[in-house]
């Protein structure tokens, strides 16, 4: 009688998108893989919940890097290769930005034409005449950087080849998005603001966000658009889990991994809260390095000082605060006309928004998502599924404890609802059928993630993806142990996490090959 095999090639801690992506790739190479997920659902935060018989998306979730079927981007290609079938629905617009203090009220759409012009450049030009050429030039630069980044995801090149073949990536790698926008482009301030609205999807202000990441985000979203699963994020997660299982992966719910077992600098297994000791020479870990080195490695003497320095120095990125509501009118009756609205109460300034995220006494920049416009069948007729989200830093919640928690949650939520209500001219508080308020504590409860982090470490200029890539090998501090979540190379987001998982599997396969050769 046993629940587990004596030995696995790889144990994956965490059955969210990165973990499942990693597991699928390893299984496709014939490896035996065990995924241990602490919750009884797959997908981590990429999930949904049901209230009063009606399903709601856990927060704002959209999948980038898919692109249309006829022109697939890299994540669609990967999911196709792994034979994961998901019923994707295309999100109608890229976004609306509403910033009344700047007189900004604009809706942009994704799309690039073969002649190198972009749909959103025309939309911006309609309000800011004469900017079309520069916006097109910016997006073409972003696209070049994007394509180079994807190339380097698969290949290694010398510095000279890099400069010759990926000039745009090389020449912008040392600058923030703000520097490149200010120095290399002649654009009115408002147009720069409009083109900065996506900052929230990486949680980094433009002044410290590497242009590489900015370019990746802009090109990907503006070329391929974004998508949601008809059966909510849970459909996506479950489709991946089922496919992984078909490929031979053993996927277990309700298994909290407490310890990662290490001997002589090499991983040899894990121990769960239930007390099972399970053996594998490779472990892919969704828990943050902070948790892994701080509490999970057994014995602790196996944690190199350099690993601690790394984890302690890494700047923590944002977490989430979301108000998810079901409303008793259809969207048009609530004056809601778009899927995705970014709005600001103050003149648009990502440094200001970022600073506000260190506290919880008012956030000027919120994202309002009306799922009905992307997925019309998501609610019964005559109702609206709406979420309002801000991405503050974990330290904003330093003063919150178990006794003031519910009060804190409600007071923040109320402020956010009133903010959006004022824009709409409709008091949403009069229409709530169901409401759930999600905080970093909610994330910590369900996923166990360090400080409720959803975005990994900051994509800052001193933690740039270019620097991460350069040092990726020497940051494998314990042999056989590989990070596999948004704290890894490409950072946050559902598509990025599928990629993080793929990268983790690649590192593991290379290590396995090396060890086999010895």
């Amino acid at each position, binding site marked *: 009688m046993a629940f587990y095999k004596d030995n696995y090639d790889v144990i994956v801690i965490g059955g969210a998108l990165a973990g499942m992506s990693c597991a699928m790739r390893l299984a496709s190479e014939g490896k035996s893989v065990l995924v241990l997920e602490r919750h009884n659902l797959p997908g981590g935060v990429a999930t949904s919940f049901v209230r009063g018989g009606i399903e709601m998306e856990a927060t704002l979730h959209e999948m980038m890097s898919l692109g249309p079927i006829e022109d697939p981007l890299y994540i669609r290609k990967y999911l196709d290769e792994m034979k994961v079938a998901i019923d994707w629905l295309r999100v109608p617009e890229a976004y609306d930005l509403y910033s009344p203090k700047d007189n900004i009220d604009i809706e942009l759409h994704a799309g690039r034409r073969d002649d190198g012009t972009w749909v959103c450049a025309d939309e911006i030009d309609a309000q800011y005449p004469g900017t079309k050429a520069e916006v097109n030039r910016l997006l073409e630069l972003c696209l070049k950087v994007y394509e180079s980044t994807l190339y380097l995801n698969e290949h290694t090149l010398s510095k000279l080849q890099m400069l010759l073949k990926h000039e745009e990536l090389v*020449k912008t790698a*040392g600058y923030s998005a703000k520097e490149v926008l200010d120095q290399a482009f002649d654009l009115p301030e408002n147009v720069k603001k409009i083109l900065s609205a996506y900052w929230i999807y990486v949680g980094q202000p433009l002044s410290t966000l590497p242009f590489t990441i900015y370019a990746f985000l802009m090109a990907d979203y503006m070329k391929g658009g974004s998508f949601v699963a008809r059966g909510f994020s849970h459909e996506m997660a479950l489709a991946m889990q089922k496919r992984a299982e078909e490929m031979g992966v053993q996927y277990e719910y309700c298994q909290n991994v407490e310890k990662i077992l290490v001997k002589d600098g090499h991983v040899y297994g894990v121990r769960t809260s239930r007390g099972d000791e399970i053996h594998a020479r490779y472990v892919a870990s969704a828990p943050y390095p902070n948790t892994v080195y701080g509490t999970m490695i057994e014995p602790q003497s196996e944690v190199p000082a350099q690993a601690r320095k790394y984890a*302690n120095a890494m700047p923590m990125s944002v977490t989430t605060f979301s108000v998810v509501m079901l409303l*008793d009118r259809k969207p048009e009756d609530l004056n809601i006309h778009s899927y995705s609205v970014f709005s600001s109460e103050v003149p648009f300034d990502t440094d200001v928004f970022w600073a506000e995220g260190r506290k919880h006494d008012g956030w000027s920049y919120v994202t309002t998502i009306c799922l009905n416009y992307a997925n019309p069948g998501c609610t019964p007729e005559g109702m609206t599924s709406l979420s309002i989200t801000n991405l503050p830093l974990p330290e904003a*919640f330093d003063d919150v404890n*178990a006794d003031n928690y519910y009060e804190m949650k409600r007071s923040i939520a109320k402020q956010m609802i009133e903010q959006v209500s004022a824009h709409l001219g409709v008091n949403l508080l009069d229409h709530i059928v169901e409401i759930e308020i999600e905080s970093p504590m909610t994330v910590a409860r369900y996923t166990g993630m360090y400080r409720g982090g959803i975005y990994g470490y900051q994509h800052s200029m001193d933690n740039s993806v270019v620097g991460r890539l350069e040092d990726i090998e020497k940051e494998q501090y314990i042999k056989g142990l590989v990070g596999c979540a948004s704290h890894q190379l490409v950072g946050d987001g559902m598509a990025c996490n599928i990629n993080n998982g793929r990268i983790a599997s690649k590192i593991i396969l290379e290590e396995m090959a090396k060890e086999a050769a010895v």
Partner: protein
Amino acid sequence: MKVYGFLKDVLGANRVTSARRKLIESGSPENIYKDHIKEVANELHPKVTHVVVTKAEDVSPTARRFTFEACEGDKLPPFQAGQYCSLDLRIGETITTRPYSISSAPFEARTGEHPLFQLTVRNGKPDTGFASNWLYANVKEGDTFTAHLPFGEFYYEPLRDAKNVVALAGGSGITPFYSMAKEIEHGTLDMNLTILYGSVSTKDIILEKQLKAIQSDKVKFVNVISGEEDYEGEKGFLSRDLIKKYSNGDTTYFVCGPLPMYHFVKGELDALNVPARRIRMEVFGAPRDVTAAEGYPKDFEPKKFRLTVLRGIQEDVIEADSTEPIMVALERAGIKNNSRCRSGACGFCRTELLEGDVFVAPEGDGRRRADKQFGYIHACSTWPLSDCTIRIPIL
């Protein structure tokens, strides 16, 4: 293409790489791990709470109230009035769980020298209330339990609900409202509560003395008796006229009681044109007689089936009775599976159905769309109609 100039531009990658190395070198080599957010999350939602019974007292001729305190090393989490606690139980060979609305007030769990919570359990008829009857008869001071709390969405939400609340209670469904009433009295819950408590006879009233003691301008308590002609007070059922009489302007209705009461009260509220968002229903348990449930196959003869249970690479075969939920088959066989609400809503008993035909109770089916599509069931509210194979977590 240039940003500042060729040399500065091409050296950018080196600059960011060395900035990052410098950042990492600045990190402490000590173990300084601390996670405030996780600590708060764990205090709010402990995986389990070990509790001990400190008092058992009768609160009606048919109901007993148990007071629990945390065992040494554990701490009671905060909860919101109306939420429930799930107790792990071992009754004979059966392992099971039962949810009970917490009848004490939230402040009592977090303040004072002896933080506590209370569950009030009714002694049902011999053939019903298997676990409640057992608790009623057997639990005494000093007994310890593994408890899971807080759960449930049956609480006053000021962002959603009207300030005026009318509670429509039946039987042991009074317990969450006593919790609310007490929290209002304590000054830590701001709402106006009128409790209409339907009972057949005055003997069935639970917590009457306690409820009467905390009436105020914010808490009103009205008994509604259906089976005593000479009762001096409100008589009959929780009818639309009665509901109307005790409603005051914009009102939210909280309903908690046995299943037949839900159907009746829902009809009365609909007749009063109460909008859906002003009606909050507590979950009501799985139907006792599934054959009477809407959609159950006609003339399906009760049968015993083979239930193959997969956990990891292990396989067990047990017996499952078509008249009992799959969850109960597991529990009779002593196989642990998570369960909380036992009404199909919460999803803790989410289970993969690999083979076989089943019947899912339509009322309270809280499954996600993709779960239906991929063959997942909530075992507490799913009945076998053939031999089945399921996969459950290793617990």
